[in-house]
């Protein structure tokens, strides 16, 4: 029983990380219909950048901020310099993101090498927490913090999208881009902000996730795939969907790892296939 509860908790905290990564991905797709397959590379680059900043300044929080801000800047540059010229050509944009991911992955390998990087969170964030609930007595503090931060970010995103003017414009743009432009909104600016936000979230997740699970070459592919599956299951363009998808995938992965370790890693994809068979637009996606 204890193992089951622990596994569920592990699944939920892993889901928190997946949500953080996937939320940026689904935001960018939902508004700009840009399947950013370089999203994983942004995760990894944000982690490396954040790590260097944390190493240099000695503060983990600055590293986290650095990851977010750094990737937001990269995202804005990508949008303005490259993707803006290809508005409307979804396939071409996607192929560009694939090319970018190949080049970024190799350059990161050249700069940071093949070693693993581990972050040290501040001392009060590491080590086990004593929980009051039996039978689970100890649980890593950091994973609880991760879960908490995902909730904060998730709520923040929801508030942003639903309660602010910018959010309103983003939602309007998702529904009908032409109308939004016709009503006098600077659509390109919204796009840039959204892409920057999506990329920034990836960078943030990179530092935060890298602290829990370390970073190394290959993580970019792993988190890209995780984002893909989460977003396919949860529905494109929906932040709530990303949350639901992340929970499903996180739980499936951890439960699979414990109770069916041989094929556990395939189960997440099976879930994806089942969802596609019965509800192709994803759980919270709009009907195509």
């Amino acid at each position: 029983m204890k193992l089951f509860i622990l596994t569920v908790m592990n699944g939920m905290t892993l889901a928190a990380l997946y949500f953080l990564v996937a939320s940026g991905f689904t935001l960018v797709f939902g508004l700009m219909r840009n399947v950013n397959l370089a999203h994983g590379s942004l995760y990894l680059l944000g982690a490396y950048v954040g790590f260097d900043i944390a190493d240099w300044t000695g503060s983990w929080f600055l590293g986290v901020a650095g990851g977010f801000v750094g990737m937001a800047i990269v995202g804005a540059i990508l949008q303005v310099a490259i993707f803006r010229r290809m508005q409307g050509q979804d396939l071409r944009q996607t192929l560009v993101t694939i090319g970018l991911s190949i080049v970024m992955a190799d350059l990161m390998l050249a700069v940071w090498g093949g070693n693993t990087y581990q972050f040290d969170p501040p001392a009060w964030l590491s080590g086990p927490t004593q929980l009051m609930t039996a039978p689970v007595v100890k649980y890593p503090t950091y994973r609880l913090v991760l879960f908490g931060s995902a909730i904060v970010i998730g709520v923040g995103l929801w508030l942003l999208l639903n309660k602010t003017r910018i959010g309103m414009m983003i939602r309007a743009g998702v529904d009908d881009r032409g109308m939004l432009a016709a009503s006098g909104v600077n659509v390109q600016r919204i796009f840039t902000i959204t892409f920057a936000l999506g990329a920034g979230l990836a960078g943030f997740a990179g530092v935060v996730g890298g602290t829990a699970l370390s970073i190394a070459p290959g993580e970019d592919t792993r988190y890209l795939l995780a984002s893909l599956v989460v977003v396919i299951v949860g529905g494109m363009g929906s932040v709530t969907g990303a949350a639901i998808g992340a929970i499903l995938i996180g739980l499936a992965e951890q439960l699979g790892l414990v109770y069916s370790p041989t094929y556990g890693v395939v189960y997440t994809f099976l879930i994806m296939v089942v969802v596609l068979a019965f509800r192709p637009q994803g759980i919270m996606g709009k009907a195509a």
Partner: protein
Amino acid sequence: MTWIATAVKPATPAWMKAIRPQHVLVALFLIAYPLVASPFWTVQIGAQSLFLGVIALSLMFLAGYGGMVSLSQMTVAGVAGYMVAVFGTNSTHPLFGWPLWVAVPIAIVIAVAFAILIGIISVRTAGIYTIMITLAIGVAVFYFAQQNYAIFNGHSGFAGLPGPEGLGLNWRDPMPFYYMSLAAAALSYLAVVYLARSTFGLTLQAIRDNARRMNALGFQVNLHRVLAHGVAGLIAAVGGLLYVWMNGRVSPGTIDIGPVIDILVIAVIGGLRHPVGPFVGAILFVLMKNFAIDLISPERFNTLIGLIFLAIVLVSPDGLLGLWRLASDRLKAAGSNRQWGSNSWRNDNGK
């Protein structure tokens, strides 16, 4: 009046009219190539370009004519390779041990069935989703092959796969292998050229351009797309068999995400507009992969190929063929220039 029967020349069949001098030249070159090239150049450069081109051709068929960029072509090819190892003989994990003339058809049938299954899963979602879904399916198959020892022999895969033997030849020897690959490439090329002009192909292209209209006209849109996946699966399966026969081995590394993306890179670099594009892309890719270590640092091969890929996508959406076409159009001075942003890139309303 005497009725004089005038001798009527039999009409030249349409396909013969289409042959130009350069086609003959290319064919002669390809046939004569192994007579002048060393075994390394015949197999690792020549034959490899040909069968990688075949696999990329299957992607080009789906993407260029069908508007569906499928990243699972290498996976289908790999499945064919795995099945011929499972049902045929191998030296690591013998299972069925049937002779090749039984194992090969079975392998192809299974691969095509798998391709159709992928088609069924992915056609219910439209356009851009196809890339994501096929990528995810490809990765799922990779993990499964890596974890399963009963059928796929896990991480180690299969080695010691024999090549076909017949007519007194071992077809894995350099020259026979090259000609086998050349035959496969020629057949699949001609098949795609033919299909593109057939009713099926024209319907497929019309669906690519506006699926909603085709649906309204009464065409079975999803059926056509699934069938297209099947055809592409057949082509990829043939390429996959050649792939595993070159080294006599297959393992999860064959269908890892690297090779999967490589096929996309090859197809895009060559050009998605005409069936010769994938082969052009394959030649460039294979040359670079083998000689980058001599020319530049071997470690940055991926950066190099990624930059070329990016350059092609940014500058010339139709790949290398598009570049040549632009250059030769400009040289011609007269005539209309090709528009940028041609159909293969612009997505319709997502339907």
